[in-house]
C-alpha cells in the first residue's frame, strides 16, 4: 500500500482511468446488448474487438504509410489528411467488427438457437469461437504472436492540465468519440424502429414474434450493433495505445465484461457507468499498489464483488427491455 503515490497520482490516474474506461464501456455495450436480448454471455465479443483492432492496421497499410519515423520521412499527418486517415481507420474497424460479429452469430449461435440448446452450450460454443479467432490471428497473422505496432500518424501532445494531470489530445478524442458513439446507440435503441424491435425482443421474445417482429433479424442486428461498438472501441484503443496482438481480446474482454456486470448487464447506461468506474478504479488500484498493474485488476474485482454483494444485479440493474434504455 502506497498512499503517497495514490495521492500524487490521483488526478493522472483518474484521467487515464476515464480514457480507458470509455473504451471498456464501448466493448461492454457489445456484451450488454446481446445479453439484454438473448440472456447470453457473448464471450467471443472480445475477439470481435481484437479482430477490429486490426482494422486500423489494414487502413494504414492500404494508404501505404510507413510504420516508422525514418530519416526525413514524417508519418505524422495534420489537418484534413489526418482526419481522412483516422476516418478510414475507424470505418475499417467498424466494418470488420460488424462483419465478424454477424459471422459469429451465424456460425456459432444461430445453429444452436435452432436446436434450442441449453444455455451453457452457447457459452462453450462462444468460448470455442473465441479460441479459434484469437488463435487464427496468433497462428496465421503476419507477425504471429508478437505485438503489432501501429504507424504513428497521430502526433500525441499535451493539450491542457487538470490539477497535475496532463490531458493529451488522444485522450480527448477517445472520450468524446466514445461518448458520441454511445449517444448514437442510445438514440438508435430508443428512437428508431429497429431499436424498438430490439427492446421488444429483449422484453419478451415470444410476444414480439407474435406481434410480427422478425426476431432472427433483430438478433442479427443486435450482434451487428455490438460488433460496431467493439469496432469503435478498437479504433479508439489503437489511437490510445497503438499496438495490438492476438491475445488483446482476452485481456480487454474480461475487463469489459466485468464493466458490463458492474453497471448491470443488459443495461446500456450501466455499461457506460460500469466501464468508466472500472477504468478509474483499476487505475487507482494500480497507483495504490506501487504501480503494479496486476493489483489494479485485483482491486477492480474486489470492488465488483463488493458492489454485487450490495446490489446483486449491478449498479443500475438489468433493464434494457423494461426501461427506455
Amino acid at each position, binding site marked *: 500500500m502506497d498512499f503517497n503515490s495514490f495521492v500524487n497520482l490521483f488526478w493522472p490516474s483518474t484521467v487515464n482511468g476515464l480514457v480507458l474506461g470509455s473504451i471498456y464501456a464501448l466493448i461492454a455495450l457489445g456484451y450488454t446488448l446481446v445479453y439484454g436480448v438473448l440472456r447470453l454471455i457473448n464471450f467471443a465479443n472480445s475477439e470481435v474487438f481484437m479482430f477490429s483492432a486490426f482494422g486500423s492496421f489494414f487502413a494504414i497499410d492500404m494508404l501505404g504509410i510507413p510504420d516508422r519515423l525514418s530519416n526525413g520521412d514524417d508519418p505524422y499527418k495534420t489537418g484534413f489528411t489526418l482526419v481522412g486517415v483516422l476516418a478510414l481507420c475507424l470505418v475499417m474497424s467498424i466494418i470488420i467488427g460488424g462483419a465478424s460479429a454477424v459471422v459469429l452469430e451465424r456460425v456459432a449461435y444461430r445453429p*444452436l438457437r435452432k436446436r434450442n*440448446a441449453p444455455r451453457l452450450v452457447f457459452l462453450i460454443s462462444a*468460448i470455442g469461437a*473465441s479460441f479459434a479467432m484469437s488463435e*487464427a490471428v496468433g*497462428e496465421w497473422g503476419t507477425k504471429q504472436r508478437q505485438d503489432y505496432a501501429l504507424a504513428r500518424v497521430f502526433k500525441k501532445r499535451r493539450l491542457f492540465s487538470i490539477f497535475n494531470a496532463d490531458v493529451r489530445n488522444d485522450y480527448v478524442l477517445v472520450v468524446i468519440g466514445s461518448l458520441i458513439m454511445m449517444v448514437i446507440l442510445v438514440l438508435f435503441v430508443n428512437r428508431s424502429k429497429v431499436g424498438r424491435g430490439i427492446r421488444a425482443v429483449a422484453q419478451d*421474445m*415470444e410476444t414480439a414474434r407474435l406481434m410480427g417482429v422478425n426476431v432472427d433479424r433483430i438478433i442479427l442486428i443486435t450482434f451487428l450493433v455490438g460488433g460496431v461498438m467493439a469496432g469503435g472501441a478498437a479504433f479508439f484503443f489503437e489511437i490510445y495505445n497503438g499496438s495490438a496482438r492476438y491475445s488483446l481480446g482476452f485481456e480487454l474482454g474480461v475487463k469489459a465484461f466485468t464493466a458490463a456486470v458492474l453497471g448491470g448487464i443488459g443495461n446500456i447506461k450501466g455499461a457506460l457507468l460500469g466501464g468508466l468506474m472500472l477504468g478509474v478504479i483499476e487505475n487507482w488500484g494500480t497507483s495504490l499498489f506501487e504501480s503494479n498493474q496486476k493489483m489494479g485488476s485485483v482491486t477492480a474485482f474486489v470492488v465488483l464483488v463488493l458492489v454485487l454483494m450490495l446490489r*446483486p444485479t449491478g449498479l443500475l440493474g438489468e433493464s434494457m427491455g423494461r426501461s427506455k434504455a
Partner: protein
Amino acid sequence: MSERPPTTGTDLPPGPPPTAAAKLAFGERIAAASDSRRRFFAKWQQVPKPARWVIGILGLAFCYALPSLNLPVIPTTGTDFSSMLAGSVVIYVIVALGLNVVVGMAGLLDLGYVGFYAVGAYTVAVLSSQHGNLPWLICLPIAMLVSMLSGVLLGAPTLRLRGDYLAIVTLGFGEIIRLLAQRFDWLGATPGISNIPPPPNIGPIHFGVLDSKSFYWLGLTMVVIVYFFLSRLERSRVGRAWTAIREDEDAAELMGVPTFKFKLWAFAIGAGVGGMAGSLYATKTAFILPQNFELKLSILFLAAVVLGGPGNMPGVVIGAVVVAYLPERFRFLDTSRYFWFGVALVVMMIFRPQGLLPRRQHGRQVEPPSDDPPPFEDVREGDPDLEGGAHGTATA
C-alpha cells in the same frame, strides 16, 4: 430468500423458442437418442452382477495398463504418452469431476475453478518446499481442506448471486488467486516454487522425475476414489437437493430445501476436489508457476464438463479425456492445434448440444405415447432453462 433481479416480464427461455415443427424434430431426436441409450442400459442391467463387476474391473485394469500396452494410434507422438496421461489426462478428469459437482449437479456457473486448483497446488508447494518440508501425503489433505475453505470463503458472500453474476465473480476469484501468487514473494512470486517433493515410494513403485507411470497410477487411483465418493454423494440426499436446485431453485426453496447451504456444500466439495487435482499437479511437475494457473485453464475445465455432458459423471470423464488428450494427440499440428480445438468445440456444440454423453433423466420421464403430439416432457428436455441449469432462474 434471494433478491431477484428485476424481471423483464418474461419467463421464456432465451433464444427464440423453435416452431412447433422444430420442437417436434428436436424432441424426436432426443427421444430416439435416449431410447437407444435406455435399451443399452436395460441390457446392461440384465447382465448378472458378478459379470458386471468383472467387466468393470477389466476396464479399470485396461486403464491402469494403458501406458504399458503400446497400442497403435492412441499414444501421443510429440510427448511421452504416460507423462501426458499423468500430467494432463488424469488431472483433467479429477478437475472435471469436481467442477461437475458445481456446474453439472448444482447448476452453478463457475468460471474461476482454476482458482481452487491453484490453491491446492500452492498449499502443497508452500508446505512441502517453500516454507516447510512436510511429506506430500500430509500436504494432500491439508491442501484439500484449504481449498474447501477457500470455496466457502468465496461462496458465502457470493452464492446469493444468480447465474451470470456468479460466473463473473468466480472468474474474478480465479484471476485474483493467480495475481496474488504472482505478487507475493511468500508465494514464490513470478519465479514460482520449485523442488516440490514427490509422494513417498510404495514398495516397487517409485515416484521420481522420470516415473510418470507411477504418477499416472496414483492419479488414476485418485480418480477412482473421487468417482466413487461423488457417485455415492450424487445418489444421497445431498445429490437430490442439488438436482432440485439445478432444476428450479425457487421451487426447491419453497419445498424446504435449504438452497444456500447446499450450494455452499457444492462449492466446498467441488473446491476440495479441485484442490486435490492441484496437489497432484504440484507433486507431478515438482515446480509451479503463476502462469500455470491462467484463466484459459478454467475455460478448458468448463469445456470438459459441458462437452462431456454436465451432470453425468461418465460423460464428464469422457469430456475431460477428450479436452486433455486431443490437443496433445494433435501436437503435430503444432501451435495451430488450439485453433482446431476451438473449431472442434463449436462444431461439437452444434452437433451434440447435450454433451457427448448426456445426463439421464432418472425415472421422471413419462413414456411418450407414440402417435400423440409431442408430449410435454420432450419439449422440456430441450428447454434451456431446465436443461442447461446453470442459470435457469437467472432471468425468470
